[in-house]
């Protein structure tokens, strides 16, 4: 059998969605390659929340929906604090749907709501960041053949304090990806926090002033069809008759569906998120 690299094994685990996926609270320790990681080479992805390319690109995977409540700033702060990168150094990416990797532990599925995001992800995301940082420092220390304790990470760079030697996270990504994922990593002492507890500029704003931010309504999938409901103008109204000939004559209209009695859902009022926040069940996060 050909020698299989650790990364190939991890990729296989992520691709099949089983095996190595031990659940949200263990993924940092389990060393699951982020399901969002599209390439197996030249990427350091010690868990489902962080990806660092050899090109130096640092991508944070957002498992909670941004609805204006600020998760696309608070979640990155938790990760970046322990990863030791600046918020100006990261790119954000929506997490793919994956309850195993990204479930909100309070709900058991990948859900944003009830003001839980920071509460429940406070430690897991810090741990994810700390795991990545520990591995990057270990990679630098191995490169220089020095004690990891003599190295420090700051702003995406590992520095060997006694000699001043420096390596960027991008330069360390490949080596770090070959290291075992540590089971235990020390979290920072809160007195050393640089980001948590500070006021930060929102990271989602730039894309929202130029129209490039993607909302649920903007998503287009291959073969996707779009449906719209013609609601009764009165409560409890029923369809008396339906002439859909004109509607069908409109270009692009494929089907007019007349719901039967079973089509109505009773006793369960619709609770929706804001427009364009697909996947959110609660109006507030």
């Amino acid at each position, binding site marked *: 059998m050909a020698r299989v690299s650790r990364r190939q094994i991890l990729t296989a685990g992520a691709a099949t969605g089983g095996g190595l996926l031990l659940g949200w609270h263990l993924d940092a320790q389990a060393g699951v390659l982020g399901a969002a990681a599209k390439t197996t080479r030249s990427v350091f992805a010690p868990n489902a929340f962080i990806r660092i390319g050899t090109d130096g690109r640092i991508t944070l995977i957002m498992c909670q929906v*941004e*609805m*204006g*409540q600020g998760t696309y700033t608070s979640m990155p702060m938790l990760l970046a604090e322990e990863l030791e990168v600046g918020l100006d150094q990261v790119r954000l990416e929506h997490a793919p749907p994956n309850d195993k990797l990204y479930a909100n532990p309070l709900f058991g599925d990948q859900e944003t709501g009830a003001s839980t995001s920071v509460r429940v992800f406070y430690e897991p995301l810090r741990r994810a960041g700390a795991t990545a940082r520990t591995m990057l420092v270990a990679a630098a220390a191995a490169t220089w053949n020095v004690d990891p304790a003599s190295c420090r990470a700051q702003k995406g760079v590992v520095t060997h304090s006694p000699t001043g030697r420096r390596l960027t996270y991008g330069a360390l990504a490949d080596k770090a990806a070959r290291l075992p994922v540590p089971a235990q990593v020390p979290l920072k002492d809160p007195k050393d926090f640089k980001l948590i507890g500070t006021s930060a*500029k*929102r990271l*989602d*704003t*730039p894309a*929202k*002033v*130029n*129209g*490039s*931010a*993607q*909302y649920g*309504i*903007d998503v*287009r999938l291959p073969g996707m069809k779009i449906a719209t409901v013609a609601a009764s103008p009165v409560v409890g109204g029923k369809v008396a008759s339906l002439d859909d000939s004109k509607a069908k004559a409109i*270009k692009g209209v494929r089907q007019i569906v007349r719901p039967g009695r079973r089509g109505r859902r009773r006793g369960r009022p619709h609770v929706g998120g*804001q*427009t*364009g*926040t697909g996947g959110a069940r609660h109006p507030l996060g």
Partner: protein
Amino acid sequence: MVSLKINGKSHTVDASPEMPLLWVLRDLLGMNGTKFGCGVALCGACTVHVDGIPRRACVMPVGAAVGHAITTIEAIGATPAGKKVQQAWLDLEVIQCGYCQSGQIMAAAALLAKIPAPTDTDIDQAMSGNICRCGTYPRIREAIKHAAQTPSAHKRGA
């Protein structure tokens, strides 16, 4: 077929002249920055500029836009007023969810292009048709004033 000039570029789309401009932008051209809100010109989320005038794209038949210069949120930053408004929105952190803000920015940019130093009354009149569920109105007002005080790039010699 309908020929349009959008953000300085010519587009020809297979649409009936009655199709709302918003549908053309979003569904036929994939320009998703302009948002669908109410569909009946009540909320302002779909605001675009037609010859510099803010218009509700959801109720404007595309046929009425032929021969006119259409500007959307994707290109408003290329105008002096639009650039200042976008920067003010960033400086003052106006946005929460952001869904209405393309329309807010388009309305504000049109206001400043017409009235460089608007009064509160001017702002009320220009912005009253743009609804924000997050309630960012106080910051929108503040950001418009902030943008109005920002010197234009060419005046700074930049």
